[in-house]
């Protein structure tokens, strides 16, 4: 049974470029300022977390998410400030710690690190890393980050970074530890690794049925047990779009999510998204699209199915207008989240045949 009182709801943006009403695009700078505005809105509405992604591509505005989160910190009170994700493999764990510890100070302990290998790879050549070291880079840097997170003197040596000898890293946080998640895309190795380090897990479900991940929950539990590590409620992040009218939501989402996926597909060689594919994703897959009731039913179903502790909706994919983005956040906070909680606490969701 889902613990409704402790359920968390977040929104995440990858920093997509915002569109004007006439379809033209805003600048990256304007898009960044809009995210800060949205962070403020989300906090006022009582959303638990905002996550901001790190990308190094022309179609996204944010390459330095902690800076954006710092601005959000200054205009908010309660919302947690997360990255979605920090590409640890091509970063320096010492810098990662320092930036987040600073953000944590600025925000009264609201910083949340989400570490991942990243689904994009632009940062590798940019920072001088070799993609063929993809696995080794993440493994090695995670070991170092894990030591830094303990906020004690660090002695460490590895292949990809100069050694540290009894080195202190500053600032120390007030809680003595940065809250840390590992973002997972569906490789079983990743979920075992998260369990081994005793970190919280957030799974990016960007295609297909959430049910597919049920065995992964078992794997996480078994792995945590094997390594004698704590088990935390699991979080999921998926794409979505909410509007007052269901059909409007579907059309806006199709146009924007398709544009977004197809543009990425171009560089990766996958075929453009078909309408059939999109419809399938919105009906039974991992796009949460529609009016508030439709989206609430689907989110509730996923939370129940995977016994989640947190659900993050990725918003703003493609090029959406300010009105579309802000209305979606409002509907999510004021209609969807309360409705999801209601469904889950009345058990209505269990018999709901969608």
């Amino acid at each position, binding site marked *: 049974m889902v613990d409704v009182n402790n359920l968390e709801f977040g929104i995440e943006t990858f920093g997509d470029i915002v569109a004007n009403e006439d379809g033209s695009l805003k600048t990256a700078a304007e898009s960044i300022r809009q995210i800060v505005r949205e962070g403020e809105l989300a906090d006022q509405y009582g959303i638990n977390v905002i996550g901001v992604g790190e990308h190094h591509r022309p179609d996204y505005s944010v390459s330095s998410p902690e800076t954006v989160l710092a601005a959000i910190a200054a205009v908010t009170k309660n919302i947690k400030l997360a990255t979605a994700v920090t590409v640890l493999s091509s970063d320096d764990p010492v810098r990662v710690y320092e930036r987040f510890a600073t953000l944590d100070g600025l925000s009264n302990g609201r910083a949340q690190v989400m570490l991942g290998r990243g689904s994009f*790879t632009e940062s590798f050549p940019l920072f001088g890393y*070799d*993609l063929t070291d993809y696995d080794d880079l993440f493994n090695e840097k995670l070991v170092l980050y894990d030591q830094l997170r303990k906020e004690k003197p660090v002695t460490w040596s590895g292949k990809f970074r100069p050694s540290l000898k009894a080195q202190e890293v500053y600032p120390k946080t007030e809680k003595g530890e940065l809250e840390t998640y590992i973002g997972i895309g*569906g490789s079983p*190795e990743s979920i075992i690794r998260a369990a081994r380090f005793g970190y919280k897990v957030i799974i990016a479900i960007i295609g297909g049925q959430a049910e*597919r991940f049920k065995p992964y929950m078992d*794997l996480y539990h078994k792995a945590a047990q094997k390594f004698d590590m704590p088990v935390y409620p699991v979080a999921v992040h998926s794409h979505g779009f909410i509007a007052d009218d269901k059909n409007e939501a579907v059309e806006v989402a199709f146009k924007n999510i398709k544009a977004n996926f197809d543009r990425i597909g171009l560089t990766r060689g*996958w075929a453009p998204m078909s309408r059939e594919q999109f419809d399938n994703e919105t009906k039974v897959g991992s796009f949460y699209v529609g009016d508030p009731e439709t989206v609430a039913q689907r989110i509730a179903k996923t939370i129940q199915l995977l016994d989640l502790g947190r659900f993050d909706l990725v918003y703003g994919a493609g090029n959406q207008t300010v009105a579309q983005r802000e209305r979606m956040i409002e509907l999510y906070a004021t209609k969807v989240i309360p409705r999801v909680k209601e469904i889950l606490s009345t058990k209505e969701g269990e018999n709901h045949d969608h």
Partner: protein
Amino acid sequence: MTIKRIGIIGAGKVGIVLAGLALKAGYEVRISGSGSVSKIELTIETLVPGAVASENADVIANSDLIILAIPLSRYHNIDPQLLNGKLVIDAMNYWWETDGIREEVLTPDSTSSEQVQAYFKGSTIVKTFNHMGYHNLQEDARPKGTKDRKALFVTGNNSEAVTKVAQFVDTMGFDQVVHYHLADGIMTEPGSPLFGASLNYQDLKNIIDHFDQTEFGKKVAASTHHE
């Protein structure tokens, strides 16, 4: 020889999905990862209970049909002798994000499966399972005759081997569009309108039949000097 035992090299997303489908179809399944058995044991017993986690040599020796489901840049890590006399499915593609620069992995004037065949000289390579996303493979598998059944492209130079693999694909839950030319595997690689798509038999066949009219087909034709 009837195919009863399936050996999967690669315990990543694709390998595990294929292991699950093969178990469901009633095959005996062995699977190996890149490291020691202990590295994949927990994953295999949790995600595909019934499959045996093992090492490459054992998986290959004790299987009637082998599936290569590893990054293309890593097939060189397998001793080609091990696969002598074996029927092998190549489910791999060149994928720049994992494999690195194309020229370092492949020579420009042939296709990836031809190079896999050239490396594993003593085996018979058939290409399939490479063009559909792993979650589609998992979710779209259907019994024969089901209305919404999807199809996979199956191609290889040895017609007997292609027929066997096509039958296997059928038991795994997919219709088949069959060619008898290993180099045609390029038709379904990244960049092709078929890569990442999940189509029924007719739609898949239409694109294959008119491949030279697709943008990708034109590009492939332009880069192949001898055609």
